[in-house]
């Protein structure tokens, strides 16, 4: 019997290219997210710019081999700047017929298609609801097809370890990963380190996964499977120390930073919900930073416990997704009425109702802006990239404390789980924002306001002489006593609105990217930033006069927005919803802005944006 080692290495051609998009697709149980994350980490460490798009089902384990069970992870890595995970893919790894069926349409013509041929039995085909075996029916002829017996080869690499068949098969994703590392000339070292850490107390599994990884690599090295391998040199990013960062991780780190910069204990009240739970997982690890995480009995207790913590003097946050936001609505109104600092994170997902728990959408904007009874304005900020979540967490905390208001952060599933290289900041570059609690009983009134911010004093329980009562009933200005008088109510409603409007003084004047004036202004918010940036670049390279404004502050809006609108002939507002920011801009500025709306649980493709831009430019 010949072994891999006995096969003489074949000489391959190596080609230098500037970017590639790779997608790992398989069953939910095939470890595609881990595989994708490993490749991402390796590419990032090598110095490529990256953007990722994990796309997985809401079911933990849908029936194996079926269409609903397909889980995918897409990575765009490049020696240039990248802003999106890429429209079409160069390399697809399909672990079964269902994964092939779902994903093959996105593979470029002549793209590399690695297929686990061991999972194309009659039974596999039936589970994927395909009648014909794609490996035999020539339907894949326009691709560079590489059928690989992933299971048999993995088992052969591991046969001497004495593992059962199931455990050996669990390693086949790393065999495929090893092949991809060979294909792109990547070091296996970071993944080997990860394996050694992950299976710290299970030496047999360390050995098995390492062997599978190296098996895949050697397989390519030793066989004539690929005639060519690729080299994608590091990108020229701004100098500094980098790490790969996902949106949820960045939010967590941002809040820990805000806690230190404000000198306040961080309290998180939260209830598990996709795709926000990772923020709770992350922050619960940081007890050594004094972080208090409270997994509440429901979404309402999550926000109200945070309100209690804020009342007691903490930097309090609550993290959720759309359905949880709906449940927190009344409590947010309370936070508005009692005027205490609180940060509410909505990691948006497809809706309505339970909707698409693992898919991305931007359809909670109007809920964030208006979704409370009566006049209850709240500042709303949106993060635009995974790493931007870090900065938005700090900014939202700062505003909440400075203005004594609840602040909503909008992120989404795409930012939450997607990753990009993050240049790690120097802590000394982030300003402190220390808090002054009220302590002086002389002249103390709970609703006496700071003239610049209209913030009321933060008077925490335990402070002698400041005993006072607050609550959701209308307050008398400035005593805080219950008051039902008509004019007092109107006055208080206007004060609360003026206070939120005053946050506009925190917003630097907006400056559009691209052309400062011209034929078209694209106005976006949130996670569409990358797609819009890419589309803008491509279109401007063709000589088109286009600007791009990406709004971080959605309430209040930047003061100079109206002036900017006047400098362009037309305005395009692309959103992953039915046109919510569009609605706001049309109402507030009376501009004839046009929407591009996609509600498919997926981000925009660059091509979709470019097509709309050209249509609007009459091309």
């Amino acid at each position, binding site marked *: 019997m010949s072994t891999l080692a006995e096969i003489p290495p074949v000489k391959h051609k190596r080609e230098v290219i500037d970017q590639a998009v790779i997608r790992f697709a398989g069953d939910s149980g095939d470890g595609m997210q881990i595989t994708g994350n490993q490749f991402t*980490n390796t590419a*990032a*460490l*090598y110095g490529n710019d990256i953007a990722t798009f994990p796309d997985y089902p809401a079911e933990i384990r849908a029936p194996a081999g079926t269409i609903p069970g397909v889980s995918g992870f897409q990575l765009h890595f490049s020696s240039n700047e990248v802003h999106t995970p890429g429209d079409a893919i160069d390399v697809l790894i399909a672990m079964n017929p269902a994964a092939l069926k779902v994903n093959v349409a996105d593979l470029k013509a002549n793209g590399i298609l690695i297929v686990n041929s061991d999972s194309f039995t009659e039974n596999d085909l039936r589970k994927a609801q395909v009648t014909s075996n794609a490996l035999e029916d020539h339907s894949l002829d326009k691709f560079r097809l590489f059928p690989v017996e992933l299971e048999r080869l993995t088992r052969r690499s591991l046969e001497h370890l004495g593992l059962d068949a199931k455990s050996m098969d669990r390693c086949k994703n790393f065999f495929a990963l090893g092949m991809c590392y060979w294909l792109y000339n990547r070091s296996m070292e*970071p993944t080997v380190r990860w394996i050694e850490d992950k299976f710290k107390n299970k030496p047999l599994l360390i050995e098995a996964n390492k062997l599978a990884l190296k098996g895949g690599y050697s397989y390519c090295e030793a066989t004539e499977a690929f005639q060519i391998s690729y080299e994608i040199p590091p990108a020229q990013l701004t*100098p*500094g*120390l*980098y*790490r*790969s960062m996902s949106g949820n991780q960045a939010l967590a*780190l941002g809040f*820990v*930073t805000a806690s*230190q910069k404000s000198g306040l*204990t961080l*309290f998180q*009240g939260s209830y598990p919900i996709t795709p926000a739970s990772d923020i709770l997982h992350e922050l619960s690890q*940081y*007890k*050594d*930073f*004094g972080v*208090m995480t*409270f997994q*509440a*009995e*429901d979404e309402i*207790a999550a926000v*109200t*416990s*945070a*309100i*209690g*913590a804020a*009342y*007691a*003097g*903490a930097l309090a946050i609550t993290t959720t997704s759309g359905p949880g936001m709906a449940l927190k609505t*009344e*409590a947010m*109104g309370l936070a508005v009425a009692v005027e205490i600092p609180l940060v509410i994170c909505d990691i948006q997902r497809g809706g309505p109702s339970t909707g698409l728990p693992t898919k991305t959408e931007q359809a909670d904007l109007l809920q964030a802006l208006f979704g409370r009874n009566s006049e209850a304005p709240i500042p709303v900020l949106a993060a635009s990239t995974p790493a931007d979540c870090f900065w938005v967490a700090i900014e939202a905390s700062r505003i909440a404390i400075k203005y004594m208001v609840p602040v909503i952060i909008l992120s989404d599933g795409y930012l939450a789980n997607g990753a990009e290289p993050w*240049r*790690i*900041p120097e*802590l000394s570059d982030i300003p402190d924002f220390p808090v002054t609690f009220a302590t002086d009983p002389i002249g103390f009134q709970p609703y006496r306001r700071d003239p610049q911010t209209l913030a009321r004093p933060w008077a925490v*329980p*335990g*402070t*002698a*002489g*400041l*005993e*006072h*009562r*607050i*609550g*959701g009933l209308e307050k008398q200005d400035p005593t805080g*006593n*219950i008051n039902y008088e008509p004019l007092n109510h109107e006055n208080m409603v206007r004060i609360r609105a003026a206070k939120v409007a005053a946050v506009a003084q925190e917003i630097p004047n907006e400056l559009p990217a691209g052309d400062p004036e011209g034929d078209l202004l694209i106005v976006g918010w949130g996670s569409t930033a990358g797609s819009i940036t890419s589309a803008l670049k491509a279109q401007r390279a063709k000589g088109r006069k286009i600007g791009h404004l990406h709004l971080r502050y959605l309430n209040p809006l930047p003061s100079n927005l109206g002036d900017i609108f006047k400098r362009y002939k037309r305005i395009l507002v692309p959103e992953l919803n039915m046109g919510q920011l569009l609605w706001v801009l049309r109402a507030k500025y009376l501009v004839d802005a046009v929407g591009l709306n996609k509600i498919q649980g997926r981000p925009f493709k660059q091509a979709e944006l470019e097509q709309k831009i050209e249509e609007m430019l009459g091309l």
Partner: protein
Amino acid sequence: MGTATLPPPLTKKDFQTDQEVRWCPGCGDYAILSAVQAVFPELGIKRENFVIVSGIGCSSRFPYYMNTFGFHTIHGRAPAVATGIKAIRPELEVWVATGDGDALSIGGNHTIHMLRRNVGIKVLLFNNKIYGLTKGQYSPTSELNKKAKSTPFGSLDRPFNPVSLAIGSEATFVARSVDVFQGHLKDTLKHAAAHKGSAYVEILQNCNIFNDGAWFSLTDRDARSEHVLQLEHGKPLVFGKNRDKGIRRKPDGDFEVVQLGNGITESDLVVHDMHHPRPSYAFQLSHMEHMTDFPTPIGVFRAWGNVPRYEDVMNQQVQNVIAKRGRGDLSKLLRAGDTWEVK
């Protein structure tokens, strides 16, 4: 001498506010307010360390009338708000004022979870068996077939027994008192104040507008001793005008009412043990009022002090991690994991 520098002791007046009390004349809430204002100065706690948190309902106006820190929150959520306060400031003395609708209907979830966690919060549950502030609908403690505004043909749902519910939720301190029994109420509140964990006190309270006389059989001067059994730790379960009736355990474990005399003495009766390690005894006590001819117990059903407070273990966990790992270094945290340098 040194005593000259001590602040004068607090009095009941120190806990009264300048706000006009807006409960209906004759409401049982006045009696409860008065008892609390009388008890607070005796607890040896600084006034600024008291926080009263409430939800929505007549009882939840309570904080406005107490000259302490007060937070009138939203319907049913007071226990969750109070939990957040205690997490951050465990040393504060946090009391929740709530009602049967607030705590057991809309806020039922928070009530049971606060109790199972044993957060160090004192809960005053004003039970008048009716929705008062919304003008007279039946509540989750209203008796079956209650004819009220929303149930002209009678209510269809069986009521909660608030004491049973609390015991079933693993509450470590459960008591019951009555608005008009001022002495008993104050004693019960002091017991509750002394308890370290969650202390849950059901206060039978009369709504003289929408459910007048709901507790008449217990409060009527002539009838009360026949219908009320006052629980005293270490004492047999005796009641009756002439203290001639008692509760005896049957061979099958159930309770029975027995007439003392004819060879039956107090030594045959169940002796109250509020520190009983298992909740089943207190639960059985709480349920006997539903049986014909049985009295309604008041007093402390259960006081189980061996469970740590939630806010303490929560803060302790933070301290333990700090002791083990050292205080977190943010700069290191930001640089954690795999990093790479771009030159």
